[in-house]
């Protein structure tokens, strides 16, 4: 429970920052950066999320346990995405590397 009372000015500043980032991400989307469009969009969204989490949700002023809980949440989501993606990304590598290929002659007894 954040005891510290944040001045209103900080909240308004954070809000303006969020608005600016929204305009930025929309603007960037109109420039063709190829694959970097996605990276930029995610980076800006992450920055906006940090602003909201640190200031509006007061994680900046609250204890370590809350931060661990939050980081654990995102980490578990990353686990789900990473492991599922690992299946889809490597599914097309059907032929195993040469070293693994069946060295045994096909008609061994």
């Amino acid at each position: 429970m954040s005891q510290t009372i944040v001045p209103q000015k900080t909240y308004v500043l954070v809000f303006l920052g969020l608005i600016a980032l929204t305009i930025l991400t929309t603007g960037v989307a109109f420039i063709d950066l190829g694959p970097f469009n996605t990276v930029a969009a995610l980076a800006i969204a992450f920055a906006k999320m940090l602003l909201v989490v640190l200031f509006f949700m007061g994680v900046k002023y609250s204890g370590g346990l809350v931060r661990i809980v939050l980081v654990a949440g995102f980490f578990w989501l990353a686990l789900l995405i990473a492991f599922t993606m690992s299946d889809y990304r490597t599914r097309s590598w059907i032929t195993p590397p040469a070293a693994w290929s069946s060295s045994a002659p096909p008609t061994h007894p």
Partner: protein
Amino acid sequence: MSTATLEPQPRVHTQRNYLNADYGWKSWLFTVDHKRIALLYMISVTFFFIIGGSFAVLMRIHLTEPQGALVQPETYNKLFTLHGVVMIFFFLIPSIPAVLGNFLVPLMVGARDLAFPKLNLLSWYIYITGGLFTLYSAIAGGVDTGWTFYTPYSSTYSNTQVTAVAIGVFITGFSSILTGLNFIVTIHKMRAPGLTWFRMPLFLWAMYATSIIMVLGTPVLAITLFLLALEHLFHVGIFSPALGGDPLLFQHLFWFYSHPAVYIMILPAMGVVSEIIPCFARKRIFGYKVICFSSVAIAVLGFLVWGHHMFVTGQSIYAGLIFSLLSFLVAIPSAIKVFNWTATLYKGSISYEAPMLYALGFIGLFTMGGLTGLFLASLATDVHLNGTYFIVAHFHYIMVGGAVMGYLGGIHFWWPKITGRMYPNAWAALAAAIVFVGFNLTFFPQFILGYLGMPRRYAFYPAEFQVLNVMSSAGATVLGVGYLIPLIYLMWSMRYGPLAEPNPWGATGLEWTTSSPPPTENFAEIPVVTQEAYAYAPEEAAGD
């Protein structure tokens, strides 16, 4: 504790406790006392266990003959589906956390109640609502997709009550989310003065690890079943191959929760055994910190291994390699626990009341169950064994041999604390022996059936598998009898059982310092903890 004489003594606990504090159905259905909510859960969980168990008996009778002895194939499919859904979501997942956990976590932590008592009651009502949806689906025609609900069969081709069951399980998921949330906050914020993390009983560590899984895993099942219900209703969804969707994605999302769910089922039983073994060996647990960390390690590693359910589904062989390696690693903490329990018995003073018999039975059967898991973690043998009765035998060894034995052990261990009554130890020992024998006779033949290649979920099978199936069915009847006996003598003990002292087994732990049954506010004064957990040894017991 000599075996109590059996003639009924109509004495009743006179001093005020949570049972005689209030009467009438309102005092039960609107209670916020964690102990009464635990009893509500105990009754409803037993009710679902009887339903799931009866489905199992029907299946085993049906399988005594190769062409099926009892029901039509479609009905058999509904039987094994509802047996799976009811047993897993309505008995195994809630049983120890919601019954024993709800009753004991505040007592062991030294608090008056859980952090959010109203949420706890809401969790029971959510559980009952989910149960009603599932019962409705059973009555209104049943569901025949298997408890795994694999698409596209469940989303497009099955015309049974898939939506009703999906909603039922979706709702029940929130019941275990709320229980997990309650435990995490209670264990973090409401420990008694002096009760540091490493003085906590191992049952609390097991509850903490289980709650982590419940909180992090269940929501993914919720969204998956939500998407499944949408796809079943609108015939369009992200799993339908017609749109380019991938049915394997459903399996990924489903097993992301459902494998950690098997650790939700087994970790609490491990916690119960970690309480029973030191008490009846009257010796401090061997390697306390190692068991704490292995509980949390199982909870975390449990999230990284789900791919071993999909080795043969056309999942990428490289992802299979990663999942196989991690599945082997998750077996290590469980092995460590078994060795530590066994080492606890060394140089102990062991007595053989019913809880100890269940705990020892747990160790034996869980060892068998865990080791047969290695067959399924290794890629080459899993290709042969996946989808056969070997799998059925493996998870029943863990679930029935492990989780149910653990639950029964826990019920028998804390029964005096919950009801203030003792039960006839001779009957309890007999029931434990029958359960052990019946269980092995039921499920060991299924390992061989699996190796011979008999696929699971078959309503009729080639004749050469009949002998082993008949053996398994015979075992099932013995197991069924073994489960009925405790139901009888425990109900008898509620009214006629001899009164229990606050600490009949001489166990350590804050729950044994208060009266049996405890008062509504658990403790007159919030206790202060000065000793390590399991302080059975003389010098520590003297409280220097």
